[in-house]
């Protein structure tokens, strides 16, 4: 793609004397669904990562697939928080908002940081678009934007001018608008353009003219920044590299990391991975990634419904593979009868729940943590199992591996809770070398001497995994209560008591196989502990770290294992005067901790479909100290 590269000289970052150093920054791109917002957001994230910053991103798109152009419900946004320090969240309020149409301004302006900067494309502020966005007048002309700094640029016109020599149609030319914006933002934060130019060449390999137009727009946006800087209109910033451990990194969403964790976990267990799922927002990306991994021995099934998905996974586990299924809250409800079968049959099974705001269809593209009770208790009968929660996109990998480990160790279903926030958000992830990870090969039963399908390992209480096809081990299992010794059908009252007890004891004993609960941040005992699970990790951790910097006595405890709870958790929590449980529901973990430890825990709860902000958590800390 030599012909479309600008002269080499122009690609060298110019030494600027006026770049303002920042520790971190939050940028939010917003525009119409068709504006290519997610695309430039992701590209900006990759360039930012390659410059050595730590980062977290959050794509925020509408539930409608193709909402009418220019409407507020068709606004798509992408937020990135990046910095010279370790980044824990995708950021609260953006420092810089890019609004590519009036609807984006209407939706996103209220979230802008006080005194923040707005970049608007004045070319899109036609009377028609203003009306569609619900503006009575032009917000650029009245006091709507008085609070912060507004950079008004006719991006549409400048893009058309930049690509004019290539002779594209106006429609195609305007589609390069997002690249013009990206070029400007690259200049603002001192980013390189080379890899994006190479990427554009590859992406539009079949249409070199379109590739060239996009590169022209990218370069024009960048040049605009340089020129404006001279005029003093736009400030350039510099964000130094973050102190990340050396290694190879990639960007992952929580969904990707769950999928890779399952692939690696199954390998570490030396099992074949069988994944059955039914499409549901926001869980489907896990199925999409795994469906492409057949060369790694992964079998996937898009089942006819949620029930069939979990049942097929149970069948695969019965047949000696690692059965996994995945869904979101409504689908989990449908799976619950079958999960109880897996509890009774004592088969390993991993069930992923990428939670969304409920009940019922609720807000399918918005996040919530309201399925903890469902995971812990949402089954008929006494049906104990293990429950884990992932705290961040990258953590999804470790949690998926851990779920496989616990499932095969105790021959039990394990529910993994993720959510729409970390499922879609990305984070820089240090790619592990598979050979360096501790393996936990499964020993499936082969010895027919004295074999009983329900004899138990004295340490783990797990029953043997006797896989069909193994000579001499043919046996029958099922949902009817089984005899403690033989596994045959038993209606004996004493036997049912004994089996109920052992099923509970088996899960309780997993507490011996999981790490003791550590404090994520702050002292081991003191005045106030903030306790969280899942995706609240980022905002709690950042808020506590800011409070500690101020000298407040506060700690952050974050749970990965929710069933069984870590053995030392009660003792740890007892070391604090006050315990504040921060969660995106009406107090489900809080109720658990209160019942488990007779602890007067308080709650900080939120049910808006959005993650907690750091500021919300900080205020809760201040109110209590």
């Amino acid at each position: 793609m030599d012909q479309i590269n600008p002269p080499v000289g122009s690609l060298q970052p110019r030494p600027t004397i006026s770049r303002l150093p920042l520790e971190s920054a939050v940028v939010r791109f917003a525009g119409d669904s068709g504006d290519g917002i997610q695309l430039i957001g992701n590209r900006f994230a990759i360039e930012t990562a390659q410059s050595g910053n730590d980062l977290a991103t959050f794509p925020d798109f509408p539930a409608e697939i193709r909402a009418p152009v220019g409407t507020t419900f068709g606004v798509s946004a992408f937020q990135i928080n990046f910095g010279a320090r370790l980044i824990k969240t995708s950021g609260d309020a953006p420092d810089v908002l890019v609004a590519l149409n009036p609807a984006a301004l209407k939706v996103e302006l209220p979230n802008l940081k006080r005194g923040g900067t707005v970049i608007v494309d004045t070319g899109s502020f036609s009377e028609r678009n203003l009306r569609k966005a619900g503006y009575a007048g032009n917000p650029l002309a009245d006091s709507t934007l008085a609070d912060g700094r507004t950079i008004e640029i006719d991006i549409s016109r400048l893009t058309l001018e930049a690509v004019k020599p290539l002779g594209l149609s106006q429609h195609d030319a305007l589609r390069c608008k997002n690249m013009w914006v990206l070029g400007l933002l690259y200049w603002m934060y001192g980013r390189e353009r080379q890899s994006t130019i190479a990427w554009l060449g590859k992406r539009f390999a079949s249409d070199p003219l379109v590739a060239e137009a996009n590169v022209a727009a990218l370069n024009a946006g960048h040049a605009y920044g340089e020129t404006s800087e001279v005029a003093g209109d736009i400030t350039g910033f510099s964000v130094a590299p973050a102190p990340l451990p050396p290694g190879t990194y990639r960007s992952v969403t929580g969904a990707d990391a769950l999928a890779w964790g399952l692939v690696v976990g199954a390998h570490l267990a030396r099992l074949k991975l069988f994944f059955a799922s039914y499409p549901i927002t926001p869980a489907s990306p896990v199925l999409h990634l795994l469906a492409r991994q057949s060369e790694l021995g992964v079998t996937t099934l898009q089942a006819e419904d949620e029930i069939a998905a979990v049942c097929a996974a149970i069948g695969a586990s019965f047949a000696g593979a690692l059965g996994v299924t995945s869904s979101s809250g409504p689908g989990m409800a449908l799976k619950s009868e079958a999960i109880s079968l897996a509890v009774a049959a004592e088969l390993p099974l991993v069930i992923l729940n990428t939670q969304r705001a409920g009940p019922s269809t609720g807000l399918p593209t918005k996040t919530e943590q309201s399925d903890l009770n469902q995971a812990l208790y949402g089954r008929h009968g006494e049906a104990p199992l293990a429950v884990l929660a992932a705290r961040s996109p990258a953590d999804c990998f470790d949690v998926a591996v851990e779920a496989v480990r616990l499932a095969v160790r105790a021959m039990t279903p394990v529910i993994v809770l993720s959510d729409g926030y970390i499922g879609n958000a990305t984070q820089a992830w240090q790619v592990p070398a598979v050979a360096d990870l501790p393996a936990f090969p499964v020993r499936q039963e082969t010895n027919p001497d004295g074999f009983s399908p329900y004899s138990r390992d004295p340490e783990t209480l797990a029953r043997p995994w006797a896989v069909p096809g193994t000579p001499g081990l043919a046996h029958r299992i099922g949902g009817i209560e089984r005899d403690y010794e033989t596994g045959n059908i038993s209606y004996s009252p004493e036997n049912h008591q004994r089996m109920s007890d052992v099923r509970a004891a088996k899960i309780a004993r997993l507490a011996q196989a999981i790490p003791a609960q550590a404090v994520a941040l702050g002292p081991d005992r003191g005045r106030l502990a903030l306790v969280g699970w899942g995706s609240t990790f980022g905002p709690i951790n950042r808020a506590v770290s800011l409070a500690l910097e101020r000298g407040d006595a506060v700690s952050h405890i974050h749970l990965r294992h929710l069933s069984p709870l870590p053995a030392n958790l009660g003792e740890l929590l007892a070391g604090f005067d006050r315990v504040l449980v921060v969660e995106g529901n009406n107090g489900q973990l809080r109720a658990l901790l209160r019942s488990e430890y007779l602890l007067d825990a308080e709650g900080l709860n939120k049910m808006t479909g959005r993650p907690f902000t750091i500021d919300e958590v900080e205020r809760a800390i201040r109110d209590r100290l």
Partner: protein
Amino acid sequence: MTAVTPPVSFVPKDFASDQEVRWCPGCGDYAILKATQKALAEVGATPDKTVFVSGIGCSSRFPYYLATYGFHTIHGRAPAVATGVKLARPDLDVWIATGDGDGLSIGGNHLLHVLRRNVDLQILLFNNEIYGLTKGQYSPTSHRGTRSPSSPHGTQEEPVSPAQFALGAGGRFVARAIDTQQKQLVEILKAAHAHRGTSFIEVFQNCVVYNDNVFATFTERAVAAEMQLWVAHGKPLLFANGTRGLRLKPGTLMLEAVTIGEEGITEADILIHDQTSKPLALMLAALQPPTMPVALGVLYCSPTACLPLAPAQGAIDPAALPQQIDAALHRGDTWTIESRADS
């Protein structure tokens, strides 16, 4: 399953488990169990390579009485569980035991999709037109007017026909048998086993307690010859000891029962059964007493591609897998953070 005849190493009783059978005395299930054990022995099945999966209901107790691997699962879901078993372990010989309630009411969706996917397994659907294990409510196959605890005035619903359902769902092997007619039942089970893809067998099974004699209109010895049409591929569709047969009613697309020798009809006028013809299978499956005989035997058998598919690139090399996973994890944009001189 490929049709090979290995040396018979197992006899029917090798397929009987040590568990006491707990169906009601006189239940048709006993006969189906016996026929299955015989068929397994005759096709050279190995207990350790055979898996029976069932749902819930009287029929679904079936796996407990077979000395194979067995999984008694939950109501209606056996096809989904069995699909997982077969996809995870294509080398296993997988069977499903289900009933009219389990398979066609609560599990209708799964039955539809296992047939559509053509997963290589055998389905035995015990049709007794009643819910037995829950004490006698009407089922989705109960004929209109069936009186039961939940339909005291007689059902007002049209029943579903299992064989027609299976054909409509895209089943490629659809057969019918009667519990007590062992000889034919064993042969049909063997044919089902030989078929690659989903084999569906509807067995008319008498429930002595809640629906006794519901099939008497065609199973009673006195009427059997007149009311049973046993089809055989390439053979004329004759019944009533060869005195009657089916032909296409002239000028229509309808079957007609005719008597040889009457109105100049000879055996040459009788249709020949073609088990690869779906239109014929659909017409045969729709025949109903009292005006027509019940079509029995292999109504349809037309193999096509089935699941699981053979792996496209052969077996996975376990030794190479870690490197392959590493490569997959590095695909796409990655970047490297170097050790920093100042740290």
